[in-house]
């Protein structure tokens, strides 16, 4: 994209009592994109979002929104909306009052308010629920009220903090699609925090993977999956995650490197023709395929996929093979070496 980024973070750091919050966060987020901040809990993704929203102030660095320095601006001066994990709906106000709360605060005329409310409820499929209190709605409906409240103001930037984590698995799937469609239709920029890689990989244009307050990799879902920057990314992304092998057990890679390989790139071959002989430690039937976990000295997380239902008894030995072009090579510190 050639347009100037709508959000820029420059070397942002936030620490609590000298302890690590986030460090050296630098990000450019283009307008109209869908960016996911992904990582295990405690990695600083929510902190990054709250710094962006103005709910926390950074100790170092700069935050620019729309080219304007907002590092120390109040949350309301940043022209953004936010969906909270808990939805943060006002329990004593009806759906309609919740949605137009911000418009009322900004003294938007009543007629305009009604029009925007109608449109927001239409988009989120909440027409007819105007007078219900949040307590009278299901989890999915409450989530949609939170979405309606975020889009009603028409801000170009919307922050979402794990908006799906309180929904059950089936609903999560459909709301995921709804949010993605909403973002495209409205052409807004969404920054989305999640610990669920399926959400991040399926919705986002750009995924920002974080760990211990540092960004590990920024890239498209394909980048993260196919070209992981380091062994953490390799092991975090994908189900099953990438298997890591010590280079000493393979020929031609030296002794101090780490080799990564994905399950779909491993083939089972007849005995004697493989590059490694492994012991089966578990078989997991996934429906379309069966995941077979393998043990071998110097490996972690090694597994192979077989189509359909084909359980292999524990303790059996099988030979596996793979092509060198499918291998990911990391140096001793875990950083990617090959392109």
């Amino acid at each position, binding site marked *: 994209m050639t347009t100037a980024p709508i959000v820029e973070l420059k070397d942002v750091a936030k620490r609590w009592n000298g302890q690590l919050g986030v460090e050296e966060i630098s990000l450019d987020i283009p307008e109209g994109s869908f960016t996911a901040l992904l990582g295990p809990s405690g990695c600083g993704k929510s902190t990054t979002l709250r710094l962006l929203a103005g709910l926390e102030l950074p100790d170092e660095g700069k935050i620019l929104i729309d080219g304007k320095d907002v590092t120390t601006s109040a949350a309301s001066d940043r022209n953004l909306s936010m969906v909270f994990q808990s939805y*943060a709906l006002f329990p004593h106000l009806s759906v309609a009052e919740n949605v137009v*709360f911000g418009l009322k605060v900004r003294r938007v005329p009543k007629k305009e308010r009604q029009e925007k409310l109608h449109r927001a409820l239409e988009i989120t499929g909440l027409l007819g629920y105007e007078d219900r209190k949040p307590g009278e709605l299901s989890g999915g409906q409450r989530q949609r009220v939170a979405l309606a409240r975020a889009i009603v103001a028409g801000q170009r930037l919307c922050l979402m903090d794990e908006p799906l984590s309180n929904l059950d698995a089936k609903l999560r799937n459909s709301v995921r699609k709804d949010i993605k469609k909403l973002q495209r239709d409205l052409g807004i920029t969404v920054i989305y925090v999640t610990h669920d890689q399926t959400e991040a990989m399926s919705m986002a244009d750009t995924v920002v993977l974080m760990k211990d307050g540092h960004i590990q990799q920024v890239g498209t879902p394909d980048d993260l999956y196919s070209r992981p920057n380091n062994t953490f990314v390799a092991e975090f992304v994908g189900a099953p995650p990438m298997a890591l092998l010590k280079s000493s057990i393979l020929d031609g890679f030296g002794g101090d490197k780490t080799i990564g390989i994905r399950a779909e790139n491993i083939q089972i071959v007849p005995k004697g023709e493989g590059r490694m002989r492994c012991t089966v430690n578990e078989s997991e039937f996934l429906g379309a395929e069966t995941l077979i976990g393998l043990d071998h000295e110097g490996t972690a997380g090694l597994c192979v996929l077989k189509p359909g239902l084909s359980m292999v008894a524990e303790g059996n030995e099988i030979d596996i093979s793979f092509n060198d072009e499918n291998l990911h090579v990391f140096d001793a510190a875990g950083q990617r070496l090959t392109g």
Partner: protein
Amino acid sequence: MSAHANLERRRQAIYGWLLLSPAAVLLTVFAFYPSIATLWSSLFSRNTRRNPTEFVGTENYADLFADPTFWLVVKNNLFYAGITIPVSIFIALSMALWANSKISARGFVRTAYFTPTVLPMIAAANLWLFFYTPGLGVLDQIGSVFGLPSVNWLGQPETALWAIIIVTIWKEAGFFMIFYLAALQTIPEDLKEAADIEGTSRWTYTRRIVLPLLMPTTLFIAVNAMINSVKLIDHLFILTKGGPSDASKLILYYIWEMAFAFFDAPHAAAITVLVIAVLGIVAAVQFLYLDRRTHYQ
């Protein structure tokens, strides 16, 4: 229905009644029976050596309505309630909002506010006696620094009731603050954040979000404050004894005087019945009217 299910239902019913009975017995002996006995005795004349008790119907009530002191006491008590209830609620809420915010020495502030509640009313009254005493009292000492004349706060009809009112507010506000503090803790932090992002001012947030969410607490406190405005008279015994010239006399004190100073039990009973009736009606209105406008979480 099978015999088995019937038996089980009976067993549950007996179980329920057994659980209820201790409270029912206590309330009957100490609340319901005395109320009815009071109503009954308010309908009889006073027992003197020359005139034995006889049924007089509503004559005791008629006497009261003709008694100017009764109306003065009613007026005093309405004024007392009209000031103490809203002011102590307002102060309690303000203190709670402050003590709930992120200030340093928060624990100290909370304890300090709560201290008056821990003191017995008699002790509190003695403390305030020390403040109010003309010449020696703290108020006069401070006043004299600025060259103000000595004021007998408790000794003149214009100020006596006000002096009583201030002690009551001082005593009650800290107690009510604790309820507000507890209620404030149940309001999730992210409501404030959501409001912040919308650009809500502190005042709008308090008025549109916090106060409505505190309504159940306010209702509870209002009912309690109303009951206290009739019930809480211990400090009168220490500070003014209802004087001067009945300027600070409240209904319950008047009842006590009637019954145990003038030994006029029937008239005391008649006032008591009136008080119970009024309190009952006001509490019912408060609950029925405000309940509908209150959001319970």
